[in-house]
């Protein structure tokens, strides 16, 4: 057991405290003032007013945030209403949508990456288009998705919409935004397969399919996984924007709804939750990535 240096624990803690302190300084606080004045009839009445003061008046302070967020954290899976659920429940809804969009991104992106890596002609044909589409923001893709899937309506047994235009548009947006790192990394990985391995395939006269599955895929797997990890990060970024725009229940939808409802503390709760989940996803993927790196 190696000894843990106290710095390793203390410094991050210090950083956290500094951030919290800064937040506490700029955040506003509620001030209740009682004034006594003439009510116009000659009677003196006491008026109690609550106002907010501070550098950023409406920014809730850390303690206020904690008080307001407590019900969502203490009961993370409670469901009080469509847009009033525990934080884990919202996260779960978002994660489900991300998983679907991400799966589509991988299923489309990996073969495109392979084609780009294998064929010079294919690269020359499509590389310019990819380079142009790649930096487009999710906010721009979503309306196009809406147009693409306009009128789509899959009903469940009770006649309610189970999968509608906005769901399809959401998946479309996540998939198309998350696809690019997978596409590019797979292409790089396939191009980086050492000629030696391909020579082995040639000398043994492996068929094209066998070369693909026995040589190309295993050899480019480490690169592909880097792409997968980056893609997952983007998919999680996109989900928030998508949910905000289409108003789906989920962590991003919750954030936007709470902004409109003036519950600013919940915005901070949402941001922190999004950050923590994104971090956890990234860690999980890099653990998987490491496993393949050693191969």
């Amino acid at each position, binding site marked *: 057991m190696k000894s843990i240096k106290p710095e390793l624990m203390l410094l991050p803690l210090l950083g956290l405290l500094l951030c919290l302190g800064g937040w506490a300084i700029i955040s506003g606080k509620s001030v209740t003032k009682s004034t006594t004045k003439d009510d116009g009839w000659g009677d003196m009445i006491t008026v109690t007013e609550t106002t907010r003061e501070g550098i950023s008046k409406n920014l809730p302070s850390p303690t206020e945030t904690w008080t307001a967020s407590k019900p969502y954290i203490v009961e993370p899976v409670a469901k009080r209403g469509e847009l009033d659920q525990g934080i884990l429940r919202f996260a779960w809804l978002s994660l489900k949508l991300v998983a679907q969009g991400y799966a589509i991104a991988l299923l489309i992106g990996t073969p495109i990456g392979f084609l780009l890596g294998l064929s010079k002609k294919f690269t020359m044909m499509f590389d310019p288009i990819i380079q142009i589409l790649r930096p487009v923001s999710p906010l721009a893709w979503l309306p196009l998705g809406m147009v693409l899937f306009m009128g789509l309506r899959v009903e469940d047994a009770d006649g309610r919409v189970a999968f509608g235009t906005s769901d399809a548009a959401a998946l479309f947006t996540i998939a198309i935004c998350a696809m690019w790192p997978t596409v590019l990394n797979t292409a790089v990985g396939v191009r980086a397969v050492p000629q*030696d*391995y391909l*020579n082995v395939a*040639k*000398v*043994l*006269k492996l068929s094209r399919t066998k070369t693909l599955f026995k040589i190309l895929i*295993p050899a480019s797997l480490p690169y592909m996984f880097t792409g997968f990890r980056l893609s997952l990060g983007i998919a999680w970024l996109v989900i928030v924007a998508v949910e905000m725009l289409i108003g789906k229940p989920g962590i991003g939808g919750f954030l936007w709804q709470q902004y409109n409802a003036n519950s600013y503390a919940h915005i901070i709760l949402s941001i922190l939750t999004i950050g923590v989940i994104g971090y956890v996803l990234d860690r999980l993927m890099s653990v998987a990535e490491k496993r393949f790196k050693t*191969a």
Partner: protein
Amino acid sequence: MSTPILQLTGVSRSFDSLKVLRDVNLSVHEGDFVSIIGYSGSGKSTLINIIAGLLKPTRGSAEMNGSPITGPGPERGIVFQNYSLLPWLTVTENVRLAVDQIFPELSASERAERTAHYIHMVKLTPAAKKIPRELSGGMRQRVAVARTLAANPRILLLDEPLSALDALTRATLQDEIADIWQQNRTTVLWITNDPDEAILVADRVIPLLPSQEGATLGAEIPVTLPRPRDRKTIIATPEFKDLKLSLVTTLLHAKKDSAPTLTKKLAVPDILPEDLNDRRTSSLFDRPAPRRRSQLAKEEIPIEAP
């Protein structure tokens, strides 16, 4: 004498304007153990790649069993200098890949048996479940030899198979491969840059002589030392010493003839590699500018033309 299984006639190869091989003639018969020796960078690998079918000769013809070589094939098994093992497969799986591909008609257990047989032949049975990363260089090259032999090649091509190994491991492996040949009598074409190795393993040693117009094969030197050859006794015999002397003299002589008269100068690009020992600043603003060679001192590195 029977028809040769491998026949090169007037093979030349150049890369753009660089002439690598010129008018190479070679015939190898069934059961031969031929060694080709030459300087590094003199075109040895080009020659073996032409025989393996990975490169096309610019002129001349390469024939295997009387029909022209048009591409790589398992009947010409090649052991590469850098082993070329698939790093994600175990020793067994690497060999099995070749067995599965060449003998699809055998049952799974027969193929497993064949795989185990060749792993045993190179004395790697205890390491059968290991992946290449866990093996030493010598062990990796044994796996490569086992994989190539398991494909039952008509001719075994070895492209400087041992030059990445230390001298002692190299000696052991030379003896082992020679033993394997003794048992199987597979035809072997062994390319090397080590005169001792060439003489110790082969029946015929052919020097690859460098020249300005491209390298070509010199007169072959037959090695009549009795087999099995015991390294310790043989390297002390006058016969061995004579062979080695004549081989080295031929090669040195050719090198002197081909030596360039002028010294070329290599212009070095005006940028220096980043020093990885320097801590990278995370700030975007005070990144150091690339280090320029011209700001240090002009440097020209004279090189000898090959």
